[in-house]
Each structure stands twice: as C-alpha cells, then as structure tokens.
C-alpha cells in the first residue's frame, strides 16, 4: 500500500481571465477591423458582454409580441423552443413541459380569435419569486426570471402563484439534456428567455428567430432599457399591452393587437 504525501492547497478561485479576455478582445478587434469604424467597435462591445462580467441592471431584456402578425396555424416558435432547449415530449400531455405555447383567445361576443405565443412574462415583480420558500425562483438583474435548480425543492408553490401558467414541473427522470439547458426530475422550470443565447451575445431568442424565419415577424427580442433598441422604439411608437396588467407586475413581455 503506497501513500501519497498529504498536500494542502488553499482554494483561490481567481480565474485565468487573461486567456479568455484575450480571445474576447481578439474577436472584437476582428469585428472592428471589418467595419473600420470606431463607433461600431463600441457598439459591438456593448452587445456581447465579456464572459467574466456579471450581468447588469442597465439592461432589461424583454419581448414584444405583435399578435397581428401571429398566425393561428403556426407554431414555429414552440418547435424552435423545444429544439433549442431539448424539451422532448414524453407522450404525456398533462405532465410534459411547455415553456412556450400557442394560445388562442376568442371574444365570446364577436367571435374574433387572436392567436399569440404565451410564456413566462419575465415580470419585474414576479409572484413566483415572492412565494418561493428557498429563493430558487429569482429575477436576474437584467430582468430574466429563472429557477435556480440547485436550490429548487420542487414544492410547486410558484406554479400556484404564476398568473400566466408559465411553469412546468418535471414529473419524471430525464436523460440526454442539452449542455446549455440543464433540467431534471423534481424541479420546476420555465422560459429562460434563452438566457444562454443572451449571455453569448446572440441578442435574440430561438422563438423570435424561428418566427422571423417563417416571415411572420411577430416576435421581437430586445433591451427595454435601451431607448435606441428596436423594441423600445416600437413600444414607444405603437404601445404594448401587458397581460393581467391589473396585477401590476410590469411584465417584460408586451403584446400588440390584443
């Protein structure tokens, strides 16, 4: 039996930023080189935050849904979300997770039907965050409402509290989850606003990309805090409604045409 000498290490978690920073600045430099304009260099830097930088409350990510452009028979956004996040149906509709769904709303008086995607509304004052006993349900400072599945105990109180029925509980063991979308039995989950894409600097979500690809342009992702962003300009010009605005939650997802 051999014995290794006991060695003690102090844990000093200072990341080797230099390597990552180097890669990042190289990328930016390449972009800037292409455009030849120093102003665009700064614009690019503002788009994709460096990996080692925490998200900030200067942004508030949100979505604008233009229901006039949304087609009743189209569910491209739903398929794209399922594909992007690895939400594979287990053939049990009552317990299968749905992060985004197509909702049809019919006016009983007039018979008019409005079709729209419905998902987590990324509230500024989310009831799910209020009721979560462990604080697993939380709002990231850039406005994205998430579940920290490391502290979620699966009590489902958030599902009771959510006015939008946006959350799903995982009712069975899963396998083959995607690396950027960890999910598993016993925890609650919901739309993450494609947080992995946002952090990567894609500046878009899978559902909005798919909608644009279909040529419908019913979904627009963007920064509600940036007055120059497309979403802010459109909201300023045409306005946008919150669903269950009476609850005063200040949702990050706004709708036009309802």
């Amino acid at each position, binding site marked *: 039996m051999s014995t290794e000498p006991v060695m003690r290490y102090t844990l000093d978690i200072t990341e080797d930023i230099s*390597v*990552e920073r180097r890669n990042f600045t190289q990328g930016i430099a390449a972009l800037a080189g292409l455009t030849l304009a120093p102003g665009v260099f700064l614009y690019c830097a503002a788009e994709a935050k460096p*990996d*080692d930088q925490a998200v900030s409350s200067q942004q508030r990510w949100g979505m604008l849904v233009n229901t006039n452009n949304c087609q009743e028979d189209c569910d491209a956004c739903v398929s794209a979300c399922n594909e992007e996040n690895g939400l594979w149906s287990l053939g049990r509709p009552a317990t299968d997770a749905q992060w985004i769904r197509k909702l049809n709303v019919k006016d009983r008086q007039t018979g008019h039907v409005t079709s729209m995607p419905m998902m987590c509304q990324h509230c500024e004052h989310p009831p799910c965050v209020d009721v979560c006993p462990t604080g697993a349900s939380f709002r990231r400072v850039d406005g994205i409402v998430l579940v920290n599945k490391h502290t979620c105990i699966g009590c489902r109180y958030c599902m009771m509290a959510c006015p939008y029925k946006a959350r799903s509980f995982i009712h069975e063991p899963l*396998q*083959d*989850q995607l*690396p*950027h979308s960890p999910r598993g039995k016993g*925890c609650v989950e919901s739309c993450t606003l494609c947080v992995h894409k946002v952090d990567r600097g894609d500046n878009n979500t899978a559902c909005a990309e798919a909608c644009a690809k279909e040529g419908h342009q019913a979904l627009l992702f963007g920064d509600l805090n940036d007055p120059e962003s497309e979403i802010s300009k459109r909201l300023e010009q045409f306005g946008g409604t919150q669903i269950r605005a009476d609850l005063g939650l200040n949702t990050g997802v706004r709708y036009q045409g309802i």
Partner: protein
Amino acid sequence: MACSVLLSGAVSGGPEDIPPPKGVYSEDTLCVEPVEVMRRQHFDYILDHRDRTVVEGIRTKQYSLIGCIDCHITPNAQGEYARYSQDTHFCASCHLFTAVNIDCFQCHADRPEEAIRKAQEPDVKAQQSVPELHETLQFSTITFDR
C-alpha cells in the same frame, strides 16, 4: 481527516479504458488547475462557478461544467461517448471508486453536445442500451492518512 486516493486500478478495466481528454488547458498546467489540486478540489471550483453563472450570468470557461465535460468526455476507439452511468465515464470512474454520490447529471449533460444530439437521432436511439451502474466495484486502494 485528509484522505488520499489513488486512481490506479480503481475501477474494473482500469483508467486505460477511459478515453484521454481533448487537450491541455495551457502550457503551464494540464487541467485548469494543477492536477493534484483538481483531484481534491474540483468541486469547490465548480460550486463557486455554478452560483456565479446562474445568478450573475458569468460565463467564463475555466471552471464551467460544460468545459469539463467537453474536454474530458471524449469518444473511445469505437467513437462512443460514455454516459455517467458507465464506469468508463471520466467523472463516474472516480466517483464510483470513492463512493461519492453526486446529482449533477440528473439535470446536466454528461456528454458534449455533439454526443447528445447524436443520441437523439432516431436510428441511434433505437439500438441504445444503457448499461446498469457497475456491477463490479473494487475498494482496494483507498488509504487514509490520518
């Protein structure tokens, strides 16, 4: 109490069955920290990084679990990636030996994305057989120093 663990001959078949990592992290060190440090303290790094990533959105690669998996979980000679339920999985090989029970891979991907996407293809999915967790465990070389 400090516990020193030797990996050699720990698991049936031995570490030679575990495909080598993709590469080295830098010129100075093989892994993201010296190997001896990683053996004992990888979880402290992962845990610290976990909270920063989930809550603050910090996405550096050095201590990210995806980074660990991408580098360490490589295909064997037959082009197959081990799952965590197999003793040829890099993480499982040692956790089994040390009788450490983790729940990371109940939610997290235990293989790189390309392996998972491949497993989702219908013809691959049909002929998959996931072996049960290790019948043979040999607790032969655990030594306690104090």
